[in-house]
């Protein structure tokens, strides 16, 4: 099965100045595309030749896992953004955030800390446990919380390529502005 690069749900300049057109040109147009190309090169004649992307993420390791999970993670990350949209959670997800973290602000603080302190390349995640409660985790490199039985709701890419053109070494500034482009309607739709 040939994997495809999904379309971005907005224009390349739609997230500026939080994330610039130049960053998206490389991040989506080069990095994301390269993971797709590499996975398509790696899977023929393997048990994953006809697997869905999610199945590969759940079951593979090594280079196949790295490229498959990076495709999945980036698609999930890019889909969360929108130039317009509600910037705070409502309804059941808002309640779950409150009961798991105390308040939306306390959640943002904890998520920010996870994203800031992850050393090296990786992702910060908000996920749902089986009982509906929420948890924040860090994953190195291509890591994905589905491998630990969690349902991902929100992620922040803290590989340097996600922010280096716009923020250089100042990762905290990128995370601070990340909240300005989140579309919580998308994140709520994942909390089912």
């Amino acid at each position, binding site marked *: 099965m040939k994997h495809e690069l999904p379309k971005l749900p907005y224009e390349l300049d739609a997230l500026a100045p939080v994330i610039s057109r130049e960053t998206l040109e*490389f991040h989506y147009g080069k990095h994301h595309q390269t993971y797709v190309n590499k996975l398509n090169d790696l899977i023929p004649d393997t048990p994953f030749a006809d697997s869905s992307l999610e199945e590969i993420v759940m079951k593979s390791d090594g280079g196949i896992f790295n490229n498959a999970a990076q495709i999945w993670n980036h698609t999930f990350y890019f889909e969360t953004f929108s130039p317009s949209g509600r910037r705070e959670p409502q309804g059941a997800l808002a309640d779950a955030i409150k009961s798991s973290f105390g308040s939306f602000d306390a959640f943002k603080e904890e998520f920010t800390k996870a994203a800031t302190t992850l*050393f090296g390349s*990786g992702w910060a995640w908000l996920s749902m446990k089986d009982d509906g409660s929420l948890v924040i985790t860090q994953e190195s490199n291509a890591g994905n919380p589905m491998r630990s039985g969690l349902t991902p709701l929100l992620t922040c890419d803290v590989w340097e390529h996600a922010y280096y053109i716009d923020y250089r070494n100042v990762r905290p500034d990128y995370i601070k502005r990340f909240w300005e482009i989140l579309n919580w309607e998308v994140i709520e739709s994942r909390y089912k």
Partner: protein
Amino acid sequence: MKNRVISRTAGIGIIVILSVGIVLAITKPFSVMEENDIVGGFQFPSLPYGYDALEPYIDAKTMEIHYDRHHRAYFNNFVNAIKGTPVEDMSLEEIFAQMSSMSDVIRNNGGGFYNHNLFWKNMSPNGGEPSDELTAAIEKAFGSFDNFKELFGSAAASRFGSGWAWLVVNSEGELEVGSTPNQDNPLMDISPIRGIPILGLDVWEHAYYLKYQNRRPDYIDNFWNIVNWRDVSERYEAALK
């Protein structure tokens, strides 16, 4: 009249001096030592060349941020982490030998401090050639110099995420190539490749992103233009002792 001319000339001279000073201050072509650069037995080194010395292979802006922001942050975080602890009186080599018993903050920042110290010295705009002894050892270990470059380049290209590629002298006195994640290095007891590093290549994205973006292989190819083989050869001699 004459006085006036002189004073005008002097005035222009002062303006020129001030302008040059301002331009230097803005572009900061050289690393500048700061007050906190020596803490206990540890020193944040000055860069052995100007920020633009490795152009066009490594651009001046990358050098400045890499040295003055990333490297300096590792140094500051490291000395803060060990302050008032028994680790304060140990050498980096002693710390790395006991890495598995230490905190992540010491591992990450101590590694980042040491690795960049080595990296800056491993590069030069005119680094010469490997010594006869090092050349012979490379040919013995890897078959040929080209094979070595290919192996080292492949270690650097295939390190997924952030990390370093290394040429080390192992405990048998032989050369080996490998890579480590994040700021680990081959002196650490947790490292998959062990030995005395004589050449390191930083493949964190911050090392190359402003100039090469996603093209890490181009950065690796260009690295060979700026390797300081005199330094690597001296480290090889020292590692055998």
